[in-house]
C-alpha cells in the first residue's frame, strides 16, 4: 500500500468526526425538543388548571347543542355560495334518521346581524307553485329565540333567486336571502338540492347565552303529496331542539393573551373543536430562516418534519388528532414545519377538566425559526465553533497528508531521475526543508553525489592512471636509451632488448588507457563536415583489407549517396574499433561485413561477424568503460575501452549504439553464430 493511499485511508477516518458531530447534534436537538415540549405541556397544563372561575362556569354551562358563530368583519354577499365564509367546511350537520335529507348549517355574525348558510341535499325538489297556493312544497323554517321573544321565517320560494320574507308571529322584520338550486355534479362536488344564504333581521348581542336558533327542513317527496319528512328543529316540532349560537369569548382571548408566553399562541376549543378563545397570532414573528438554517434543520432533524399549514389568523374549529387525543384525556404534542416559511412549530394539546369532566382542550403552539440548537444561542455557538474547528482540523489533516505524500513522491521521482539521467544531486528538491524529509533529501543528495563522484572516478581512472604512469615509463625508457649507447656485451644487449619489449607493451597499455580521455577532448575540437558516408566506409574497408590480408571483409552500401553531417575522423575511429573488435572476436575463416543502411531520418552503420556470440549477462553494459567480455587473452592488451569509444563517438553525433546476437539459438555451433554491432546516427545535414 502506498503512503498516499495509507494517508488517504487515515484521512477518511477523520470523516467520522463530522458524522459523530452530526449524531451529537441530532441527539442534542432531540433533547432540546423534548425539554421544550415538556415545558410547553406544563405551561398548557397550568393554563388549563388556572382558567379563571367565570370562564370555567361558562364552559360548564355551554349548551350541549351549539353552533359556532363566525365573526365576520363585513356582511357576506347573499348569493348562495359560501366562498366568502371562513372555513366553510366546518358546519353543523342536520339530518333525518333515514338519511333522506342531509343538511348543514353555518352561522356568522357581523355588526350584530346573524347570517346563516344552509345547504340541503334533496333528491326530490318540489317547489311552491303560484297556481296552487297552499299546496305542500319543500321549505325551510328558521326560528330565532332571544330574550325579547321568538321570531320565525318560513322560506318556501317558487324558484331560485333572492328572497325577502316577513316573519310570522310577533316580529315584523324581513329576512333577506338567496335561494340557489343545485344539481348533482360530481366534478364540483355538489349534490342535487338547494342552498340558502340569509341574513336575519335581528340585532343581537351575540354573546348572550340566551340566543337560540331552530331550523326545520321540510321535504315533500313528490308533487301533491303531504309533507312526509322533516329534519331539524322546529319550535312546534316533535323533537324540539334549540341550537345555541356560540361565538368566541373576547374576554377569555384577552386573558389567554395576557398569560401566554410571548413566543406562543394559546387556543381553547370546546369538546366539539369549536374555537372559544384565541390569544392571537400577532405576537408570533414570521419565519426568518435562511437557506443555511433550513438545510441544517433538514440535516439534523431526526425524522423528516411533518409539513402542516399554520393556524389561520382566526380559526373557527380545530379538528386534528391532537385535539381528539386530548379530549380522550391524553395530553399530546406534535412537531411540524410550515411549507412556505419553513418555520417549525410545536403544538401541545391538554384537556381542560372541570369537575372531572373534559369540557375542552387547551392548545399551545410555539414557533421557532428552524433549529432549536440555533435558537439556543450559547449552545448553538458552541456547536458551530466545534463544527468549524472540526472541519478546519479535517481540512488541515487532508492538506498535510496530501502534501506529505506529494513531497515524498517528488523526492522519490527526483532521486530515481537523478540515478537514471545523472541530474546533479544538488538539484534535488526538499534539501532546504528542516524536517525529517529534508534530512532524507540531504542524505540522498550526499549519496547521489558520492555515486556521481565514483562514476566520475571510474570514467577518469584510466586517464589519470595513464598520466601517472607516463613519468616512470619515461624514466625507464630514457634509462634504457642511455644504457643502449654504452658498450654492452651481447648478453647485456639481449636483456636490454627484452626490457625494451616489455616497456613498449607497457607504453601501449598506457596509450590505450588514455585514448578515451583524449577522444573526449578531440570530440570537442572535431571538424564537422557533410560527407557521403558511403565513401568513408568504402575507403575504410579498403584500408582494412590491406591491413588484414586473408580475411574476408564484405561491404554493402545504398545506391544513393548518404550525405551526413558528421566528424569523419571520429566516425573512422569508431569504425576502427568495431572492425578491430569483430576481427579479434572471430577467426581467419569467419566473415566480417560492414553495412550502411539508410533508414528514415537515420543512418545505420553495422559491423557483423560470424563465429562468436555475446554473453547474455553483459549485453547492456558492453559499451561502458572498462567492460570486457573477452575470454581469451590476446597479444595486445585489452581494457574494455574500445566499445566505450564507439559509444562516445555515437553520442557525440546524437546517435546510439547497440549490439546483439543474430542467431537466437545459443547452442548452435560457433560457425553459425553471428554478432552485430550497430551505430545509429540521425540523418542531419546542413
Amino acid at each position, binding site marked *: 500500500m502506498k503512503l498516499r493511499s495509507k494517508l488517504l485511508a487515515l484521512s477518511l477516518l477523520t470523516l467520522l468526526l463530522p458524522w459523530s458531530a452530526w449524531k451529537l447534534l441530532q441527539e442534542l436537538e432531540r433533547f432540546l425538543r423534548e425539554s421544550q415540549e415538556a415545558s410547553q405541556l406544563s405551561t398548557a397544563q397550568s393554563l388549563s388548571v388556572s382558567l379563571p372561575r367565570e370562564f370555567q362556569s361558562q364552559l360548564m354551562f355551554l349548551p350541549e347543542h351549539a353552533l359556532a358563530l363566525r365573526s365576520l368583519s363585513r356582511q357576506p354577499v347573499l348569493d348562495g355560495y359560501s366562498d366568502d365564509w371562513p372555513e366553510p367546511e366546518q358546519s353543523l350537520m342536520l339530518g333525518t334518521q333515514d338519511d333522506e335529507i342531509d343538511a348543514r348549517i353555518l352561522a356568522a355574525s357581523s355588526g350584530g346581524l346573524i347570517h346563516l348558510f344552509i345547504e340541503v341535499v334533496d333528491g326530490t325538489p318540489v317547489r311552491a307553485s303560484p297556481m296552487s297556493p297552499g299546496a305542500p312544497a319543500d321549505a325551510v323554517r328558521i326560528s330565532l329565540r332571544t330574550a325579547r321573544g321568538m321570531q320565525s321565517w318560513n322560506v318556501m320560494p317558487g324558484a331560485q333567486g333572492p328572497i325577502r320574507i316577513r316573519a310570522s308571529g310577533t316580529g315584523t322584520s324581513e329576512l333577506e336571502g338567496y335561494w340557489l338550486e343545485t344539481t348533482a355534479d360530481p366534478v364540483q362536488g355538489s349534490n342535487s338540492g338547494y342552498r340558502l344564504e340569509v341574513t336575519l333581521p335581528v340585532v343581537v348581542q351575540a354573546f348572550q347565552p340566551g340566543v337560540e336558533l331552530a331550523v326545520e327542513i321540510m321535504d315533500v317527496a313528490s308533487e301533491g303529496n303531504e309533507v312526509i319528512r322533516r329534519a331539524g328543529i322546529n319550535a312546534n316540532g316533535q323533537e324540539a331542539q334549540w341550537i345555541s349560537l356560540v361565538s368566541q369569548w373576547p374576554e377569555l382571548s384577552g386573558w389567554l393573551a395576557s398569560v401566554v408566553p410571548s413566543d406562543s399562541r394559546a387556543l381553547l376549543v370546546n369538546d366539539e373543536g369549536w374555537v372559544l378563545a384565541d390569544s392571537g397570532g400577532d405576537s408570533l414573528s414570521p419565519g426568518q430562516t435562511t437557506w443555511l438554517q433550513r438545510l441544517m434543520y433538514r440535516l439534523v432533524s431526526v425524522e423528516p418534519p411533518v409539513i402542516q399549514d399554520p393556524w389561520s389568523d382566526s380559526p373557527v374549529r380545530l379538528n386534528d388528532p391532537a385535539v381528539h387525543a386530548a379530549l380522550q384525556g391524553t395530553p399530546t404534542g406534535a412537531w411540524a414545519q410550515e411549507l412556505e416559511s419553513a418555520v417549525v412549530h410545536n403544538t401541545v394539546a391538554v384537556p381542560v377538566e372541570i369537575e372531572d369532566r373534559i369540557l375542552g382542550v387547551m392548545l399551545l403552539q410555539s414557533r421557532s425559526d428552524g433549529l432549536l440548537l440555533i435558537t439556543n444561542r450559547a449552545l448553538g455557538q458552541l456547536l458551530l465553533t466545534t463544527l468549524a474547528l472540526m472541519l478546519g482540523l479535517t481540512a488541515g489533516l487532508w492538506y498535510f497528508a496530501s502534501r506529505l505524500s506529494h513531497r515524498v513522491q517528488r523526492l522519490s521521482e527526483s532521486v530515481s531521475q537523478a540515478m537514471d539521467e545523472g541530474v546533479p544531486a544538488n538539484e534535488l528538491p526538499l534539501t532546504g526543508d528542516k524536517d525529517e524529509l529534508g534530512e532524507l533529501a540531504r542524505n540522498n543528495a550526499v549519496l547521489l553525489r558520492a555515486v556521481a563522484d565514483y562514476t566520475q572516478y571510474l570514467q577518469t581512472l584510466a586517464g589519470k592512471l595513464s598520466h601517472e604512469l607516463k613519468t616512470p615509463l619515461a624514466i625507464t625508457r630514457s634509462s634504457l636509451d642511455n644504457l643502449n649507447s654504452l658498450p654492452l656485451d651481447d648478453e647485456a644487449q639481449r636483456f636490454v632488448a627484452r626490457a625494451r619489449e616489455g616497456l613498449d607493451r607497457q607504453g601501449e597499455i598506457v596509450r590505450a588507457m588514455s585514448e578515451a580521455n583524449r577522444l573526449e577532448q578531440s570530440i570537442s575540437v572535431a*571538424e564537422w563536415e557533410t560527407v557521403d558516408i558511403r565513401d568513408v566506409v568504402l575507403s575504410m574497408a579498403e584500408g582494412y583489407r590491406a591491413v588484414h590480408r586473408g580475411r574476408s571483409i564484405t561491404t554493402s552500401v545504398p545506391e544513393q549517396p548518404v550525405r551526413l553531417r558528421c566528424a569523419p575522423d571520429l566516425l*573512422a575511429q569508431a569504425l576502427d574499433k568495431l572492425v578491430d573488435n569483430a576481427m579479434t572476436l572471430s577467426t581467419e575463416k569467419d566473415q566480417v561485413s560492414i553495412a550502411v543502411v539508410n533508414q528514415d531520418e537515420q543512418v545505420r552503420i553495422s559491423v557483423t561477424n560470424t563465429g562468436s556470440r555475446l554473453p547474455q549477462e553483459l549485453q547492456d553494459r558492453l559499451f561502458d568503460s572498462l567492460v570486457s567480455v573477452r575470454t581469451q587473452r590476446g597479444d595486445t592488451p585489452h581494457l574494455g575501452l574500445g566499445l566505450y569509444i564507439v559509444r562516445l563517438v555515437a553520442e557525440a553525433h546524437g546517435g546510439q549504439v547497440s549490439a546483439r546476437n543474430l542467431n537466437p539459438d545459443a547452442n548452435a555451433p560457433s560457425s553459425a553464430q553471428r554478432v552485430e554491432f550497430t551505430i545509429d546516427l540521425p540523418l542531419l545535414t546542413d
Partner: protein
Amino acid sequence: MQRHIAIVEDEAAIRNNYEDALKRYGYHVSGYGQLQAAREAFARRLPDLVIIDVGLGDDVEGGFELCRELRVMSRGLPIIFLTARDSDFDVISGLRLGADDYLTKDISLQQIVARVVALFRRVEALSGGKTDDKVLERGDLKFSVERMQVSWKDQPVALTVTEFWIIHSLIRHPGHVRTRSQLMDDANVLVDDQTITSHIKRIRRKFVAADPQFDQLDTVYGAGYRWKPAQA
C-alpha cells in the same frame, strides 16, 4: 662552439637521463629542477636551446609561464615542450606560446636528439651560415629544407619541427598516400594514429589561416594522407 642546452624538469631521474644523453652528443647541458632556479639562471645568461616540462612540481602550468617569459627575452630561442600530458588542449596552448615543438615523454632519447639537432640546424641556417639551401617547390608551396621554413603563396607558415617533417614526408611524392605509420617514421615520432590526426589537423589549420582556399592536404579514410599534386 659547444651549444648550451637547458633542461627544466622536476623529475630528477628523467632530467639526469636527458642530460647524460645530450652530453654524450657533445652538448653542454644544465638541468634545473625548479622554476625559480631556472629563471635566475636564464636571467644571467640565455642558453642556446631550452627543453621545458609543462608541469613543474606543484605548478601544473609553470612550464607555460616560463616559456612566455623566455619568448619575451628572445624571439629566436628554440623551445621544446616535454610533457606527460598529451591532450590537444595542452598542445595548442604550448604552441601558441611560441614553442618550436611539443613532445610527450614517451618519446625516445634519439628522437629528442634528432629534434635538437634539427633546431640547431635551423638556427644556423637562419643566421646565414649556409648558403646551399635546398628549396622544394610544389605549386604555391615553397619549402626550405635547411632553414625549416615553409611559405604558401609567399606567406610564411610557422610550423613546428614535427609538423615540418610531416609536410616534408607528404610533399616528397605529391599524390601518393602516406600512411600514418610512415608519417610517424618520417617525423621521428612514435605516437598513435590519433596524434598524427591532430598534427595533420593543426597543419591544415595553419595553412587555412594563411589562405582560406587551401585544400591541398587530403584525408584518405582508412589509409592515411596525401598532398594533392598542383593543378596543371
